[in-house]
């Protein structure tokens, strides 16, 4: 299979000043005294990873293990300090995107705002508009301001906008808890369909059961390092055993 994600020796290091320095004045004083100590925090340490086209790769690990940082590096939000990231195809992240919505605008207006935030053109969105509304089951409310929506409705709209176009590489970050049971089934069905059509999927979770049932391969991250990589059941089993 064609490799679509290749990470070579990728490290990400955050450095934060040790003391909290609120003001410019403090900063200037400390700088003059050459007194600023930075605490270096390695979120990812020398990660090598390759994902092939059409794979469903599970990424498991505890909170703070570096899962989100790994996703940021792959979706080019974060440029790694060391190492090299190469991607073939467009990465579509499906994180909770309510941050890209505006409460005063209508559902219709928010579809355009959110769609363009994801990099689609206005014409793209216009031609898929009805499809987005239908999938989210919001036909009756589409011209009402978003602040009148329930949180489930907002989540449905977000999912619908983000998955209307078949992604080449899809990132799912703990997302399959959107809306009610019936809608979740719809989401899973759509993701399954993408996968059958060749979409590469990265699924981030701390639920080892989900990894076993959905993924073909899995990576276990711990303190920024790859603890294990291989067939999903094996890695999920090791992770479960360690807990």
């Amino acid at each position, binding site marked *: 299979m064609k490799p679509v994600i290749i990470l070579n020796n990728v490290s990400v290091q*955050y450095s934060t000043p040790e003391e909290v320095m609120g003001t410019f004045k403090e900063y200037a004083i400390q700088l003059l005294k050459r007194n600023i100590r930075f605490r270096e925090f390695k979120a990812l340490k020398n990660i090598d990873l390759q994902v*092939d086209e059409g794979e469903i790769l599970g990424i498991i690990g505890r909170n703070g293990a570096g899962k989100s940082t790994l996703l940021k590096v792959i979706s080019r*939000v974060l*440029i790694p300090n060391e*190492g090299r990231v190469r991607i*073939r195809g467009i990465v579509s992240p499906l994180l909770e995107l309510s941050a890209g919505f505006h409460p005063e605008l209508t559902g219709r207006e928010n579809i355009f*705002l959110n769609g363009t*935030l994801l990099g689609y053109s206005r014409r793209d969105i216009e031609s898929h508009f009805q499809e987005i509304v239908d999938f989210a089951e919001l036909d009756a409310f589409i011209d009402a301001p978003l602040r009148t929506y329930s949180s489930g409705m907002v989540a449905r709209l977000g999912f619908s906008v983000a998955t209307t176009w078949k992604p080449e590489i899809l990132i799912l970050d703990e997302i399959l808890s959107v809306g009610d049971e019936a809608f979740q089934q719809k989401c899973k069905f759509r993701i399954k369909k993408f996968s059958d059509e060749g979409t590469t999927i990265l699924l981030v979770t701390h639920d080892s059961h989900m990894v076993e049932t959905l993924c073909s391969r899995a990576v276990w991250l711990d303190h920024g390092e*790859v603890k294990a*990589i291989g067939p999903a059941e094996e890695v999920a089993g090791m992770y479960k055993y360690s807990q």
Partner: protein
Amino acid sequence: MKNDPSMKEADSFENIPFTYDSKYRKSSAIEEFLDIIKYRDLIYQLVRRDIVARYKRSFLGIAWTMLQPLGMMVVLTVVFSQLFGQVEGYAAYLLSGLIAWTFFAQTTSATLEQSVWGGTLVRRIYIPHTVFPVASVVTGMVNLVLSLVPLLLILLVTHRPITWAILFIPIPILLLTAFALGVGLLLSSLALRFPDISEMYRIIIQAWMYLTPIMYPSNIIPDAYRAWLLYFNPAYYLILMFRVPIYDGVLPSLPLSLIGAGISLLTLMIGWIYFSNQADKFAYST
């Protein structure tokens, strides 16, 4: 188990190009510029959101964009017309300067705030970072163009001559926009390191307004301060370029136009390059 066993098979696909390679990136300022063209529809949506959402719940809606400078002008004219009575057509003099200044002050502050709103998004999905500052500047430009309506109204009411020179006005508007964007980008990059900048800027922008001849004529400035308040004040040239075709009804002189254009384009260039180079660090800040 520790190393990925499929790593070695990559060679046979070497000829299929990558869409993204963290190692080979163009100069960030150019890359940023190309990206912004790709994301032009997003800029349109952000501008629309800013304008629509702001007035959605108000009764008069977008008319407030025109009423606001008008109200401000009435207040200031009442207060200052005794003091600056020697200025012919004070209302028109004041409003032409005030509109240009308000545009500059509002867009630069909005850029600072926008980078906060954009910040939460920019840490989740890839969006070119300049999208948010550019959107706030375009929003300001729309408001500026709308406030030309009350300005023309005042010219008519106070019997100021309206000449062909007014057709020149798009040029100073574009230069003001470029200058505001440049300053906004510089401020946002600085705010990344020093969050206090946004609070500090509120004071600076107030002081800057009073030190620039907007409410008072420039000839009342004592000679000793002229150099500082006028010649070293970039806002002075740009506001003058905007004011001359409206208030005096003539084209700005060539030296003035060249200085104005030079200041704004240079500021934009420095701001754009500095911001683009810092942009990678936005995701690292928390």
